[in-house]
């Protein structure tokens, strides 16, 4: 037996290293290393060639030259607060923030009531939250065009009820982007909130009630603090991707509300300015690095707490 265990112990670290290497290598190769290419190309210049950017390193006879071109970064910040890139970053951060707040306001009570339902009902309700998530995201965003446009479902309904006399312009405004974002990101808020709320011990709430706490007080001093993890996880799952959102502003937004994701896609696609797109991405990562690190720290703490 002991010999067996010794053999096992000797095998383990080696085997573990090999096992770990598989996902590690994949993520390094296709997730981490690519960011260095973004960084590198953000210092390049546009070039009419294949690929469409200049090389940073040039070799002449016996001279190795490295050109770091800061032009793209200067272009982002040169026009001050009114520059199109700064405005686009601002719009994106603002939109992402509002999306997070609204999904939290709508999602929290939903997650709370689902978590407190009977087990059979709970499963059905949870399935109903997940169902739209499994159907195509593009198709659900598209559905809002039919609802929000001038002769769309909502305007027709309001006019037939004589609440309004002529259609309200809703589509291709910041309002329609907001609706689309809140709608699309809602399940990402509800699910982490639910998984925290469902673990909450009902006896704590009963005890608070027995001790004479009003429901509102119970909520503030017990439920809310105990679901803090879900609020943080949900908010990060919504906020960080929402900053770079491309599809929703492209399909539901007008030309005036430029968000940074669309700006990046435009520079990459129609403008064929890959160094600019890269610089836009680098600045976006800089903006998001603090929430990302914060989220990661928090997740690791959560995982340890569960053990």
């Amino acid at each position, binding site marked *: 037996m002991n010999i067996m265990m010794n053999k096992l112990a000797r095998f383990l670290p080696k085997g573990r290293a090999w*096992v770990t290497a598989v996902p590690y290598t*994949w*993520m*390094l190769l296709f997730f981490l290393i690519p960011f260095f290419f973004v960084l590198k190309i953000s210092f390049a210049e546009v070039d009419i060639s294949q690929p469409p950017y200049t090389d940073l390193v040039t070799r002449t006879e016996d001279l190795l030259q490295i050109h770091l071109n800061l032009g793209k970064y200067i272009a982002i910040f040169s026009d001050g607060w009114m520059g199109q890139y700064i405005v686009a970053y601002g719009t994106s951060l603002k939109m992402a923030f509002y999306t997070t707040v609204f999904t939290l306001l709508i999602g929290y009570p939903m997650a709370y009531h689902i978590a*407190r339902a009977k087990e059979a009902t709970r499963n059905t309700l949870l399935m109903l939250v997940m169902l739209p998530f499994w159907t195509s995201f593009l198709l659900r965003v598209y559905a809002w065009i039919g609802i929000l446009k001038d002769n769309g479902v909502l305007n027709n309904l309001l006019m037939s009820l004589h609440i309004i006399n002529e259609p309200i312009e809703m589509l291709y405004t910041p309002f329609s982007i907001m609706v689309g974002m809140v709608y699309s990101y809602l399940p990402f808020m509800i699910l982490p909130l639910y998984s925290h*709320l469902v673990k909450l011990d009902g006896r704590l709430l009963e005890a608070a009630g027995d001790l004479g706490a009003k429901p509102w007080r119970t909520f503030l001093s017990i439920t809310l603090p105990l679901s803090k993890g879900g609020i943080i996880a949900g908010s990060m799952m919504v906020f*960080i991707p929402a900053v770079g959102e491309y599809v929703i502003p492209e399909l539901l937004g007008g030309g005036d509300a430029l968000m940074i994701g669309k700006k990046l*896609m435009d520079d990459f696609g129609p403008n064929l300015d890959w160094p600019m797109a890269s610089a836009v991405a680098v600045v976006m990562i800089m903006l998001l690095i603090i929430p990302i690190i914060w989220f990661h720290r928090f997740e690791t703490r959560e995982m340890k707490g569960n053990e």
Partner: protein
Amino acid sequence: MSNGKMSFGARSYLAIGFFFLYAPIVSLIVFSFNQSRLVTVWGGFSTHWYGELFNDDALKSAVALSFKIAFLSAIAAVLIGTIAGLVLARFGRFKGSSLFAGLITAPMVMPEVIVGLSMLLLFVALSSTMNCGIDVAEMTGIQSLACSAFGERGMTTIWIGHTTLCIAYVAILIQSRLREMDKSLEEAAMDLGCHPFKVFFVITIPVIAPALVSGFLLSFTLSLDDYVLTAFLSGPGSTTLPQWIFSSIKLGLTPKVNALATIVVAIVTIFVVLSNRMMLKAQKSREAAMQAAAAGGH
């Protein structure tokens, strides 16, 4: 915290919430049977657009490509994601474990435009350093292998992108399942001298099988649905279903899109309801078996 009846307020709140989630989907279904070309003006009942849908060859090839990529991505994501989940749940701290955990979960939150751009730049740089433009006959073995994979954007590059995204979701699913699992079974097997690999295949895999299935389905759906990553990683000859949908919406060819949406919703609903039923049944029979075992033991 399950406690009995839901109040009227709770019921109405949930009703409004679910109305918000489902109203757009319902309106898509209704207008898919609209005779009129105008999407929101009702012109009588018709299944005309479904017929159009089935005659669209571009759509058919887009669906075929999307399914192929989704299947391959889901397989790769389950294989790699399961290992990653196992490492996260069972290996504790090791050198670089914090970076590892960060790398695995980051694609879930990182804006897709950044992930897409960075992967594309990697592939482009690889193909230009490999000199993929030169004559095929002059290539070395590794070079031709790399060039056929990354030189031209298309199925392989999209597959790599989707797999990277899906690994995160599979790893999280597997990890949380492994944490719930009773470790004593694995430990007992190890104490009896079972090789860790054998323990994994004989004990761990069957226990986490439901998580593997849902990881596969989730990856399949994510891949089938992804537009942004695909837009960066696809080449001229590869159009996926989301790309077809996106350009149809942009060009205003939308009654067909309604019909497509209805078909997707129908398939997904049937699938989700059935799998939910099966899971509940399996859970019940497992509980019954455990009760029977407990009764027999006494």
